[in-house]
């Protein structure tokens, strides 16, 4: 599904990714671990075409992400759900509207929005927060809302960039369970984290990064 071929990302005074090559298959749950600055976020940004590689190519199925055109970029992003460490919810929209916005973006009708949004909020246990704004919710609730927004359009891939970075252990475990459930339903998940405990609790493929390089991939180890 995702192919990184000898990808490097070089900024003026630093190398964020150094000759990275790997592939992710459909339905996999891949955890990318490493310290801050190891290149995890740069890697996810390249899949979203937020950053372009200095060298090498990134493919999302048959799409060469490096050469994507503006109108195709929107289409690509609609196939991917994203969860950030800092939630990045729309602060002047309620929980309902935050999810509805993602549905409106892909052209869903009002009826579909009205029937799907309460359902997904129930799935992440936020039915009681439907009319609340993000700043009226706890960190864990905001992250669950972000996950609900990411999955509402049934994307083929979920990218969760340090989703548990700001959460306590109870909320962390809840978020991990939700992500595992999403993966069990067939969606590919890429999770970046620097928390070894999270990775161990998932027990799936782990890519370890250091200074922009992949130093270990549990898939090949097997």
């Amino acid at each position: 599904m995702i192919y990184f071929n000898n990808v490097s990302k070089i900024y003026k005074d630093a190398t964020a990714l150094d000759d990275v090559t790997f592939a992710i298959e459909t339905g996999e749950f891949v955890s990318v671990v490493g310290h801050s600055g190891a290149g995890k976020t740069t890697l996810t940004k390249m899949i979203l075409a937020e950053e372009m590689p200095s060298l090498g190519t990134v493919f999302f199925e048959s799409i060469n992400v490096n050469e994507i055109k503006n109108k195709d970029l929107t289409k690509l992003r609609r196939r991917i759900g994203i969860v950030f460490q800092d939630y990045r919810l729309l602060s002047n929209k309620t929980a309902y509207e935050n999810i509805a916005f993602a549905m409106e973006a892909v052209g869903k009708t009002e009826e579909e929005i009205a029937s799907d949004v309460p359902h997904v909020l129930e799935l992440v246990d936020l039915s009681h927060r439907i009319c609340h704004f993000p700043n009226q919710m706890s960190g864990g609730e905001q992250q669950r809302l972000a996950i609900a927004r990411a999955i509402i359009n049934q994307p083929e891939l979920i990218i969760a960039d340090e989703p548990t970075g700001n959460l306590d252990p109870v909320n962390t475990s809840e978020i991990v369970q939700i992500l595992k459930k999403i993966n069990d339903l067939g969606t590919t998940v890429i999770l970046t984290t620097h928390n070894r405990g999270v990775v161990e609790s998932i027990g799936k493929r782990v890519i370890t990064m250091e200074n922009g390089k992949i130093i270990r991939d549990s898939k090949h180890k097997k």
Partner: protein
Amino acid sequence: MAFISFKRIIKGGFLNFKRSGLVSWAAVLVVTVTLCVITIIILLQAVLHFSLNQIKDKVDVAIYFTTSASEDKILSLKSSLEKLPEVATVSYTNADEALKIFRDRHSNDYPTIQALDEIGTNPLGAYLNVKAKEVSQYESIANFLKSDDALVIGSVSIIDKVNYYQNKSVIDKLNSIISGAQKLGFLVTLLFVILSIIITFNTIRLTIFISKEEIGVMRLVGASKMHVRGPFMIEGVIYGFIATLITVILFWPAMAWFGAKMTDFLGINMYDYYISNFFQILIILLLSGVGLGIISSFLAVRKYLNK
């Protein structure tokens, strides 16, 4: 589909405006100040235009004919003058009327009237009063009178004198004052309009700067550019619309006061002017306000869209 998107964009704009609270009203305030500047400029231009017209109206050129000039020839000259594109009006005063006007004007001046009575005959000739469309055009009219074309009707000159040459320096001075005032008015207008646009653009840019992170997130969740940009542009329309309403409402009592207190000083009743041109002013303000709002929002969002 397009209709649903449009409806969502409109709804999004109104919701953003409502939820941004003070930030929205700050933007409305700045657009209102800009529209007030534009209104003041419109009204000042009206005062300037009115004053200049009054001055222009006082200028004319009189062509005095010899007493022997026949009325046919004078009327023939009058009609050829009227054909000139520079000429606005030509009025003819015959010798008898000229004498009557002279007597009326000097009715308290006994020696003059007595002298006139002693002559017995009418010493005054007929004259034509010529008004040009523009003050600057008197010279070309005077040149026309000097040329043969004007006098083709008779070989002997029937013109006694043309007072343009006596008034030339005054007319020239007036002409330069009028064109100077018009140029200055235009420059001041241009300067204020540019300043207002820059200030408004920057304020709207700041209101959108607050949302720059969210614009990025909207793009990442797959929203099209128009879906992101639309609501901000609708917000711009709302700023312009509300600012226009506030401006016309503010100027209503202000102009009533000006009309009551300043008409003698300005020579024009500003309240009457405001009321009689209300719809034109309203349209200018609405187009300026809404246009400024839309264009500023469009440009400000564009900066964050390509991420």
